[in-house]
């Protein structure tokens, strides 16, 4: 699966590629939902229902900003790459860059 998507990278349009990648993540075992959020916390693309999406986007956006500012306060040359929150029921993973935020919620059952 890795190789195939790399080969077709150039042929596909950007949007299709984005959707492809998101589908890949969604297809991994245990993933409940995936959300793409912009820098302000407004969701762009999601696989969950609207109210849940909005809630996750708002809350995690704030938390990510806080976490990032914490990391940068300690060392200004450092930056946050990945945030994982493990709760009793789920695991929430957040990755961020300047403009976007990607949130994945997984149910880590064995």
């Amino acid at each position, binding site marked *: 699966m890795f190789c195939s998507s790399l080969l077709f990278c150039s042929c596909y349009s*950007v949007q299709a590629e984005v959707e492809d990648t998101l589908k*890949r993540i969604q297809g*991994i075992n245990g993933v409940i939902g995936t959300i793409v959020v912009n820098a302000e*916390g*407004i969701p762009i693309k999601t696989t969950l229902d609207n109210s849940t999406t*909005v809630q996750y986007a708002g809350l995690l956006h704030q938390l990510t900003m806080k976490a990032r500012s914490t990391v940068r306060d300690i060392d200004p040359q450092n930056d946050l790459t990945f945030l994982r929150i493990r709760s009793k029921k789920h695991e929430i993973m957040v990755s961020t860059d300047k403009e976007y935020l990607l949130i994945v919620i997984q149910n880590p059952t064995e």
Partner: protein
Amino acid sequence: MSSKRPKSKEASKIKGKGHPDYIFPLVLTSATQELFGCQADEDVTGENPYKLLKKEDIIKDMKTRASVSDFSPVKQLVLDYPEDELLLVFDRDFTYGQSFYLVLTVEAKENILKPSVEGDEEQMEHEEKEEEMIVPKTPESHPWISLGSEQEIKEESVTESRPRLRYKISPLQRRCGAPVCFSDRSAQDGKEGFVECPSYQDKSFSIREMEKHTAIQASSDTKNSSTQTLWKHPKNIWTQYEPREFSLEEKEHHLRSKNLKNFITSVLIRFEISLQQNYITDVFCDDWTALCEDEGALTGKTETQLKEYQSFMDLHFSKEKTISHVHWHPTISGVIAVAMTERLSLEERIDNSTKLLLNPSYILFWNFTDPINPQLQLECPDDVLCFQFCPSDPNIIAGGCMNGQIVLWDISAHVERLQDTRSGGKNISNKLDKNETPVVRYCAVSGIENGHKAPITDIQWLPETFELSKLGIPVENASRVSVQLVTCAPDCCVLFWDLRPPRVVSHSLTEVKQKSEEKPLENPHGVPNTFKHLNLTWKPFIRVSLPKLGSSGEYSPLKFSLRDNTVDCPSGDKPLQNAEREEGCGFAQLRVPSAKQQKPMENISTKLYVGTEDGELVYTDWKMEKDNDSGRLLSTKPIHRFLVHDTLVNTVTRSPFFKDIILTVGSFSFAIWKEGVTNGPILMSAFSRTMRTVGHWSLSRPAVFFIGKEDGSIEIWDLLQNTHEPSQSQNISSAAITCIRTSCISSKQHLLAVSDRLGTLHILQIPWTLRRSSNSERQIVRKYFEKEEERLEYFEKRQIKHEKKKKEMEAEEQRKKTELVMPLKQEEELEAEALKEYEQFLALEKDILKNMGLLNETEDSSDM
């Protein structure tokens, strides 16, 4: 330099020249400097700028060098100088324009040479002024100038204006030397004793005070003022917000952006790694604690026996009595009610019937704080075999008697006593003597003709969520108070009773008036009027008989069990809280609603299990049917009936955890049933040597139940450990156990009340292993029951198969019998057939070989 001479200001007037008159700036060449010994920075320096030059020297220099001399400009001034020496000052800072200056007057020279600052008199002026303002100087002493104050002092002082007058008084000579006699005389004795000069107000002299001494204090201006916030009228305002969202186009736009694509592709790998990590193993799972949970009994508490906590034995009332029923008080912890009955068989009862009338039976209330005296006594008309607290009002107790009557008590007047003694007896009211146990008489008894004709063996209240109509259909209970009772007795019927006064069909105004005019009769013995309307006239409103399945006659029930129907109130109201009920739900005020108003409730199971005298368990419906022929209401035939136990069934109880699991205990065995499973009991115990008298489920563990036996021991059965034998057996008393009840006082203390035939009530503490259930115990037990159910089904199927097989086998045997008649003929035929077949085979072989071309005509014949 604080002690500066105050320079007189006249000496330092600047006329705009840049240098005062007595200063003459000079330039001295180095030759001149050498000559006079005033070389700059060598002989004269900044610190020591003064040099005294002789006048003669200067004149000599002027003569020798004439116009070239540096001193030529000051020639005349030098000649005029009175003294011999002139002061030359090295002006390092060029203050007067040149490097040197000559001081021309003696006075200035004096001034400069005296210790003071050279030259800069302008600055000194300023400094003086500043100093006067800034630094307070010690005042100089001046001669005193008189301003007239000495005159005042002179006036004030007292001086002698004339010389003092002197008088000498001497008595006559003849009196000198004569004896004198002195006597006392007080001043008040005569008029001339003293002269008084009292003060009086002389109007000619009224002095007006021209001067007054007053104290004055300066204070700042104060002003009193107040503010008040405006009370705005309160308004209901609400706000609503919704989250920001992107429109579809914006979303598309974002999805198409390259940035997003780059971001996602770069981030993808770490997501995949993490997701897979989680999938592979749970990093946060603590195996150690998880291990412990499953094991169960590893916490070090090894006690498994029931510990005796307390035991109650009443000396007055319990002689030769036995306890028939025990019940914990539902709300007050630490209080238990016990029904005492006579320990006699039927014949003995008949023989001693007169004695028994004099010996009334009681229900005693015991409190843990007082093991000797019971707290309350409830008087019963006859031996009470079973009783129950009303679930909606714990002050109402209903009991079933030996003579078939139902008795009702209302102990609301004495509840405080029960509660107070629980707290240690601090607030006992003065009326009641501590040693005396109050006796409460029953409020109401049912009528004898319409009640049971055999001793009532089981009584239960219907829950407050529904009530029954005349036909037995459950309908909504508007009052949310338990008003109906169910009883059963071995006279083959189950009766339903209603606590409310029956509906009067015809309401005439006169009747109503009469009722209201009647004075309420006071009951004797201070019995409350709660159930006055029922006393002696109480009738059951439904009578369910139990006709036998498959034969005539009826079952005689001993115990029954209803399904615990907890239904959500459809109107959304919560059932009445205890506080409201304590106000005194007047049962007399409740009325049976008309049948039209009542709404039938669904989801309520109207079926009940009945254990009979013959050891059968009957599953029947209490709804009444109308018989078309006679128009009377008849009860339906039971749905199932199981004969499992040999002798009478003494317990039918439901598990508190599973609503469809029932435990029935007969004399030598017990069985566990599941409602709906009609094949038989899920679990049937082995027969025990001693009789089993009672059974009771544990309230905290789904797999545990207690069985009491005739030798006074208790068996503790744990379905998770063993199903063929009890996990523990403990001897409690020497007499047979009559009743077992559990109660959870607190999470750490679970108590087991065990009563025996001798009339003693033992309270035992349930050990930790028996009261703490593990997390999955309920599921395990449920699975076990399901497994057993499957086993039963499997057995049944196997049985059916077995029967089929049996039939088939029989059929086959029959066929065989018929087929054995002609064996010989068959043999011959068989031989002929075999031969034919062989010949056919040979022909076939020939054909095949021919076709394959492997066979010659000649070989064929030779081979054969």
